[in-house]
C-alpha cells in the first residue's frame, strides 16, 4: 500500500533539506573562498566597484609581500614548537595524574583534585598578569619557553583523561599487578596504551587551542621573531590596513598548516574536539 501524497511530501522535504544545507554550507565557505580569491588580486581589483570576483592573474607577489613583512618561517617554527611542547607536557603529565586520580588511593586525593577543578572553572585571564610577571622576572620573555609556560600543565587534560581511566575495568590493572607489574609498569605498559583515542583527542584539542590563543602570545612575546602565527597576524593588521590582498595572503599562510591537518584527519579532529566538548 503506497501513499503517493505522503511520498511526494517526503520528497519535497528532502529537497528542501538539501537546498537549506547547501545554502548554509555556501555561507560557511564563502569567507574562505573570498579570502583565496582576494589573495591573488591586485589592490585595485580588490577595491573595485562593482566587485571583481575572479583575479585577472595569480598574483603570487601578495604572498611574497606577506612573507617579507612578517617572518613567516619563524612564526611557523615558534607556533609548532609551542604546540609540540604544550602537547607533550599535557599528555605526559595529564596521563600520569589522570591515572593516579582514577585508579590509585592516596591521602589528599580529593583536595588535590579540587585544585584541578578550580583551575578548570576559572577563566585563564585571571592568571595572566602574575604569569606574565613570573616570565618577566625570570627574564624569559620573548622565548619559546614563555609561549609554552601557561600550558605546561593542563587541568582539563587531567580531568578528561581521568574519565578515560575510570572507564577501564579495574581487573585489567589487577591482572597486571598479579602478573608482576609495579605501579609504574601497570600505568606505562598496560593502562596508558589503552587511552590512545583520548590522548589523540587531547592532542588535537591542545594543539587547536594553543594555535588559536591570542592574548598570551601578544602579552609575553613582543619581539616579532618570537611571535606565533596568531599574534604575528595581529601586527600585520595594522601594517596593511587597506592592502587586503596581502592581508588575505598572510591569513591564508597562517591558516594553511592547521587546515591541511584538519582535512587529512577530519574524523579525528571532529570527533576528538567534540569528545572534549563542554570546555
Amino acid at each position: 500500500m503506497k501513499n503517493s501524497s505522503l511520498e511526494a511530501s517526503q520528497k519535497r522535504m528532502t529537497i528542501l533539506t538539501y537546498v537549506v544545507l547547501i545554502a548554509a554550507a555556501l555561507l560557511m565557505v564563502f569567507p574562505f573562498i573570498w579570502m583565496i580569491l582576494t589573495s591573488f588580486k591586485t589592490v585595485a581589483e580588490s577595491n573595485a566597484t562593482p566587485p571583481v570576483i575572479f583575479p585577472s592573474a595569480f598574483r603570487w607577489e601578495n604572498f611574497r609581500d606577506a612573507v617579507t613583512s612578517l617572518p613567516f618561517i619563524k612564526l611557523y617554527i615558534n607556533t609548532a614548537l609551542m604546540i609540540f611542547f604544550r602537547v607533550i607536557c599535557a599528555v605526559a603529565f595529564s596521563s600520569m595524574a589522570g591515572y593516579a586520580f582514577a585508579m590509585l588511593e592516596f591521602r589528599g586525593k580529593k583536595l588535590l583534585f579540587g585544585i584541578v577543578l578550580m583551575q578548570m572553572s576559572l577563566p585563564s585571564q585571571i592568571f595572566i598578569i602574575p604569569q606574565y610577571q613570573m616570565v618577566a622576572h625570570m627574564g624569559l620573555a620573548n622565548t619559546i619557553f614563555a609561549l609554552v609556560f601557561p600550558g605546561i600543565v593542563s587541568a582539563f587534560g587531567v580531568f578528561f583523561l581521568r574519565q578515560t581511566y575510570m572507564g577501564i575495568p579495574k581487573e585489567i590493572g589487577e591482572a597486571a599487578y598479579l602478573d608482576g607489574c609495579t605501579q609504574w609498569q601497570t600505568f606505562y605498559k598496560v593502562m596508558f596504551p589503552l587511552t590512545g583515542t583520548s590522548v589523540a583527542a587531547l592532542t588535537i584539542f591542545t594543539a587547536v587551542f594553543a594555535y588559536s590563543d591570542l592574548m598570551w602570545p601578544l602579552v609575553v612575546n613582543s619581539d616579532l621573531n618570537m611571535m606565533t602565527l596568531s599574534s604575528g597576524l595581529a601586527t600585520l593588521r595594522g601594517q596593511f590596513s587597506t592592502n587586503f590582498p596581502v592581508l588575505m595572503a598572510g591569513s591564508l599562510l597562517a591558516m594553511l598548516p592547521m587546515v591541511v591537518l584538519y582535512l587529512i584527519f577530519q574524523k579525528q579532529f571532529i570527533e576528538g574536539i567534540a569528545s572534549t566538548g563542554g570546555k
Partner: protein
Amino acid sequence: MAALNLKGITKIYPHSGDQKKAKKKKGEPEKKTNLQVTDQGVVAVQSFNLDIADKEFIVLVGPSGCGKSTTLRMVAGLEEISGGELYIDGKLVNDVEPKNRNIAMVFQSYALYPHMTVYENMAFPLKLRKTPKEEIDRRVKEAAAILDITQYLDRKPKALSGGQRQRVAIGRAIVREPKVLLMDEPLSNLDAKLRNQMRAEIIKLRQKINTTFIYVTHDQTEAMTLGDRIVIMKDGFIQQIGTPQEVFDHPANLFVSGFIGMPQMNYFNAKLVNEGGKYAVSVENCKVVLSEEKQKNLAAHNAAPQDITLGVRPSHMVLARQPGNTLSATIDVSELMGSEVHFHANANGKDVVVIVPTMNADGERIDSFHAGDKLNLTFSGNVCHIFGKDGRNLEF
C-alpha cells in the same frame, strides 16, 4: 605445587571506606546481605579456616556477597588481609607481594590486555620476570597447545570469541607455572552451552598441569563437578567444607541443604520422636524410622525429641501405591522430562517437588498422572535430613 593454610582469615572493610568496596563484583545484582557489622567495619569474611592440600581442587561456592571472591582476592594479594594468617607452602605470605606468592589468577571478565596479541598477553608475565626469550617462546607455545589456541596467537583479544578469550586468560595464568591457580567465576560470562564445554576443559586442564586450584563460583553444578572439596559460604562465614558427595548427602545446615541440589530440597514441619530407643520422624500421619547410621549420629549427640524441619530431596521422594503411613499431595503441574517426571504438588498447603522415573522397576509407565491427581508420598529413613530450630543438622 603447594599446600595452603588459611588460619582465621578475616576481612573487614572499614566504615570510612565507601560501601562500594563491599560489592566489588560487577555484573552481580546488588543484593542486601546480612554481613556482620562491627565497630571496625563490615565483616566480609569471618575467621576462614581451611587447609588445602598440594594439587587439591578447592571450590568456594555461595550466593553473591558471601565473601568467596574476597577470600580469593586475599589469597591473590589483591585485598589486604585484616586478620588471620595465610601460609603458602608453610611460609607466611600475608605481607608478600602477589608477584612473589607464585600464584596466578583468572578473572571473570578475562582482563586481557586489549592492545596486546594473544601471544603478547601470555608472554607478558614472563617478560616482566626477565625470562629468556627462547624460554618464553617455548612456554607460551606449550600453554597454547594445551588450550588449543595456537592458531590465534597473532590475534588481538577483540577478534576472539568469549570462549577463546577465556582460554587465553587461562593461558596467561598457566605460562607462569604457578603453584596456585586462582579462578574467579571464570565461566559466568559464557553462554550455557559454552560453559558446559569449558567446564570439561578445566577438568582436562587439571589433569595436564600439576597445580593447586582455588575456584570461585556461584554455580553449584560447577562446584559439584570440579571440586575435590567444596567450601560453601554465606554472609562471610564458612557453612560447610567437604567433598561434593559429603555436602550433598550430609548437608550441615538448612542453608547448605537448600543451596546444593537441583531442584531444591523439600522441607516439612515434622517431629523427631524416640520410640523404644529408636529415632523416627513423623510428618502428619506418616512416620518413618531412621536408618542405622542416622540413629548412631543422633544418639552420639544425645538428640532430644523435638520439632524439626525435615528435608527430603525431590529425587528421594517415593510414590506409594496405597495410602497409609504416607503424605498425600495433589499434583499442580506435571512435567515429563523424558526419563523422569517432575511433579509439582501441593501437600497440605506446602509445595513439594517429586522426581520419579518415567518407568518404575516393574516396567510400568507412570506418566499417566495429571494435574489434580492425588499422590501418596513417602521416603526412606536413610535419605532424609533433620534440622533443628537453629537450622543445624542434628546429626552434626
